């Protein structure tokens, strides 16, 4: 291979491999490889081809390290991530479903609109049952100094967005699950969508409320480090409970194991600012 052809080929390989490298590290990565390749071109031009084979392996290694770093640094407890995951699920279910003609027909037809309306009504009717099934919330977390007005508004916005995305995801999953029935009995299968929806809604909305109660009322992050307080035998004369805390030091949630007449709801103990320095920022 002539020198200019070799240079062009190297440049092409380097540019291709650089695409794999994350953008923030790309320039430095390229600079290091260009330096090594130019040194080698001057000293051992015959070895360059073999040497350049490592470009892709190195680019993949850099990309993999960046993915691992990102995974490790992901804040799994933050509310934004919860919404992002639900939105991703919604997009995935929509994208996979819309490729099916029966799915499209059942979503966009008059029957589909009617089914969806029933579905939403069913979801609203599910709410009281899920409140009974799930644990009782800490009333004091919703009062007093536990959170500012802005934080309270944010909490309702989060709950609303979560419920909306969940109902949509449940509707799409019910449609996907009953899709084979559309091929057999046509639009009558919408009845099965509603039956599926009844079950799915109880699970999904129950989870949404449970998740909401296990979040810090100030920062909406999931509480952590559950600790059992007291043995189960205390339930007759005293209260045994589980305590969880906010990792930003906003407070503690005390959740009784049994709902008793003297200890019905969970209790939120708001910690003042002096505690914050013990926790991560």
């Amino acid at each position, binding site marked *: 291979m002539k020198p200019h052809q070799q240079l062009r080929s190297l440049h092409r390989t380097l540019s291709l491999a650089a695409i794999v490298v994350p953008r923030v590290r790309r320039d430095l990565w390229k600079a290091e490889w260009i330096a090594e390749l130019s040194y080698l071109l001057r000293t051992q031009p015959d070895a360059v081809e073999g*040497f350049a*084979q*490592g470009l892709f392996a*190195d680019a993949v290694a*850099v990309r993999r*390290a960046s993915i691992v770093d990102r995974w490790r640094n992901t804040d799994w407890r933050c509310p934004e991530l919860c919404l992002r995951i639900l939105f991703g699920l919604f997009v995935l279910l929509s994208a996979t479903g819309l490729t099916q003609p029966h799915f499209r027909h059942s979503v966009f037809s008059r029957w589909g609109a009617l089914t969806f309306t029933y579905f939403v009504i069913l979801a609203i009717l599910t709410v009281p049952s899920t409140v009974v099934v799930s644990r009782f919330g800490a009333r004091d977390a919703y009062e007093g100094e536990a959170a500012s007005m802005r934080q309270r508004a944010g909490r309702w916005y989060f709950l609303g967005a979560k419920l909306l995305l969940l109902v949509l995801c449940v509707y799409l999953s019910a449609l996907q699950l009953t899709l084979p029935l559309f091929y057999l009995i046509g639009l009558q299968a919408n009845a099965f969508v509603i039956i599926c929806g009844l079950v799915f809604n109880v699970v999904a909305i129950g989870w949404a409320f449970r998740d909401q109660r296990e979040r810090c009322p100030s920062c909406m992050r999931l509480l952590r480090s559950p600790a059992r307080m007291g043995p189960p035998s205390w339930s007759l004369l005293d209260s045994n409970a589980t305590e969880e805390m906010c990792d930003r030091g906003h407070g503690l949630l005390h959740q009784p194991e049994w709902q008793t007449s003297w200890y019905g709801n969970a209790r939120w103990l708001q910690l003042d600012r002096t505690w914050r320095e013990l926790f991560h920022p």
Partner: protein
Amino acid sequence: MTDTVRLSHTAALILKTLSQGYSYGFDVMEVTGLASGTVYPALRRMENDSLIEGVWESEAKALRDERPARRYYKVTRAGKQALTEAEKKYPLIASFVPAREPAKAAKA
């Protein structure tokens, strides 16, 4: 030490090479006989684990030699600890890496 990073044989070999004064990726390849697709990813991993530290050569020196500035690597204190542990595990590793001639080291 419990918090020392455990090294594979290849990683230990590369670390040993760097500790002997070979400081560029290509130098490491020449001494160890490993492929570039093995050496460079290993260097990145070890730099991520703070076992080695990458430093860019001064522009002035590179300009004098009429070539782009290269990145050279040196072993950190954590790297030396990890290497000591690895040498206990792989006692023959030193015999694979010849010590660098002082003249070459000074030139680099």
